[in-house]
């Protein structure tokens, strides 16, 4: 396992080719050179904790603006801005931009959040597995 054999390296090269082939997708409507894809961005942190979170939301918005289908799934403390507050405006803006914004119902219950900001929908975690089944490009932050 520790020292790759020639066969190991050949298999890795074949695996890399399979990944590249899978990445060949339809062109973007805004830029024919750029492929379009489905993205799922899982957000497990809250914007009160780190400024990485608004940047992550910006990534979702940018992907959407380039013609991709984008879902942001809030989980754990990532659901905290789903409660109407100053921080929830960021999520509402995302939804207005066409990004689907979902919040894990279990995480919401754990935190006693029952009222959601505009544009945010409660969802079971099963949705994430749905996306994985479909081969959606999935990120976690």
């Amino acid at each position, binding site marked *: 396992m520790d020292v790759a054999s020639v066969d190991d390296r050949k298999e890795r090269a074949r*695996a890399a080719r399979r990944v590249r082939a899978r990445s060949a997708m339809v062109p973007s409507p805004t830029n024919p050179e750029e492929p379009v894809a489905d993205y799922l961005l899982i957000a*497990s942190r809250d914007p009160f904790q780190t400024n990485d979170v608004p940047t992550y939301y910006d990534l979702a918005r940018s992907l959407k603006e380039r013609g991709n289908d984008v879902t942001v799934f809030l989980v754990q403390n990532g659901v905290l801005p789903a409660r109407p507050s100053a921080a929830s405006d960021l999520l509402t803006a995302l939804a207005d931009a066409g990004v689907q914004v979902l919040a894990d119902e279990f995480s919401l219950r754990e935190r006693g959040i029952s009222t959601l900001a505009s544009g945010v929908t409660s969802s079971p975690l*099963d949705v994430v597995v749905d996306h*994985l*089944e479909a081969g959606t490009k999935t990120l976690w932050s």
Partner: protein
Amino acid sequence: MSDSKTLTFVLMDAPYENARTTTALRLMHIAAERGHTINVFAYEGAVYLPFAHQKAHPNPVHGKDADEEDHVLPREWVAEVMATAAKNGGSVDWINCGFCVDERGAHDAIDGVRRGGPPNLVEWVGASDSVLVIPTK
């Protein structure tokens, strides 16, 4: 099931440290209920998730013994995910990073866990329908 998928999860968090572990196991359990082929590559502290010697303990602050405390043991959760997958026609192939195990002395894992390394992960990435990397902060 005919539409079974191969899903790979990459875990880094040690047990009892972050809600990411709970969420990861919840996701795996859903995938197991659907009968998917599940690969798990655990590295760094995550190699302790299936550690065989995890032991429930009492909570003297609350005046509870070990049974009353009903302490969560991640190795039991991992075993439950494996059993659920098998029951539904799927499987769980759990690899603990060998170097990470050696560093931590985490050699004794529950049944169904094997030792491996990054080449296994590269192979899985090429062979999986999806890969979810759950990083630490």
